[in-house]
Structure formats: C-alpha cells, structure tokens
C-alpha cells in the first residue's frame, strides 16, 4: 500500500472518530438541556425567594387583618 493511500485512510478514520465525538456531545447536551446546573440552581433559588417573599406578604396581611 502506498504512503498516500495509508495517510488518506488514516485521516479518514480520524475524521470518523471526530464525527463520533461531535454526535456524542450533541446527544448528551440535548439530553441535559442547554442551561448549566449553576444557572438552574440560581433560577430555583430565585423562585424560592419569590415564594418566600409572597408568603411573608400574605402573613403580614393576615396579621394586619387580625389586629383590626
């Protein structure tokens, strides 16, 4: 086998490996979703804070009603 043919086949095999890597990354990323764990955590934290604030407001309103 000539050197050129050897190099071409080797290059083709490596390109196939790169394509496999790209597909694997795409599939795993698709499964996880685009947002990172840190982003999800901060979103959950903001939602919790919003719920807590809402609850506090409701409790304060109830207290005011009871005082009256």
């Amino acid at each position: 086998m000539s050197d050129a043919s050897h190099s071409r086949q080797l290059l083709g095999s490596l390109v196939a490996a790169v394509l496999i890597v790209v597909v694997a990354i795409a599939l795993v990323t698709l499964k996880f979703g685009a947002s990172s764990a840190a982003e999800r955590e901060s979103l959950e934290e903001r939602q919790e804070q919003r719920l807590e604030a809402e609850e506090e407001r409701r409790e304060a309103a109830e207290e005011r009603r009871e005082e009256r």
Partner: protein
Amino acid sequence: MEDVVETLTRGNVAEVKVLLASVALALGCYQLAVIAVGYGKLRVSFLAPPPAFAAHRAVGDTIALLLLCTGVMCVSVYGFEDDELVHAIAGSALLCVLAIKVSVVRRDFGLGRFLPALGLSVFALLCVTWASSAGGFLA
C-alpha cells in the same frame, strides 16, 4: 483540586463527567470496529489493517486522556463513596487495566498476545463504569 475542577466546569462537574465518559464510550465502540479491521476479523474495502492500527492507537491515546481527566474529576470531587461501590471499583479497575495495556503497547514485556484480551477488558470495564454512573444521569 476540588475548587479547580468546580471552576473549570463552572459548577457542572457531574454533567462534564457524564459528557467525557459518554464520548469515551462512543469512541470505545468505534475502537472495537477499527481494531477488528486491524486484526483482519472485519474486512472493508476503504480501510486496510496498517492504517486501522494507527487510527486505533491515536484514538486510544485520546480515550486514555479522557478517562484520566474523568477519573481525576470523579475522585477529587466525589471521592470513594460507599453507595457508589460498583462505580468506584469498576472505575479504578478500568484505569489500572488501561495503564497495563498502555505499558504493553509501548514496551511489550512479551505480553503482546494479551493485547486483545486487555482491550476487551478495558471496553467491558468502561461499559460498567459508564452504566453505573453516567447511564443513570442520561436515563
């Protein structure tokens, strides 16, 4: 080390670990096909055994690097947890067998005939390690 890993992955240690392990597993499957061509078990018109061996070696080096990075991330952040015993044992065995295989490839030590068995062991251990952790994440 844990801080370095957390910073590098921007807090997504598990996700990055799963990604690296999944890429390694996908390349591992490709390695099986390529080495089958190398040993003449599988004959295809577009790939001869010598370039198949060369590709197997190059991709194998990449997989070894991926597995080493994944192992370092895993041990530095999670350590050896009792409830992940299968994963810890399979992962440790995987790196040990991989180290032996790399040594035999580079120095031979008269153990060249065991390379197919070592390669299959590495692939089997990679499957078990992936399934006991990354598989759960992706299920």
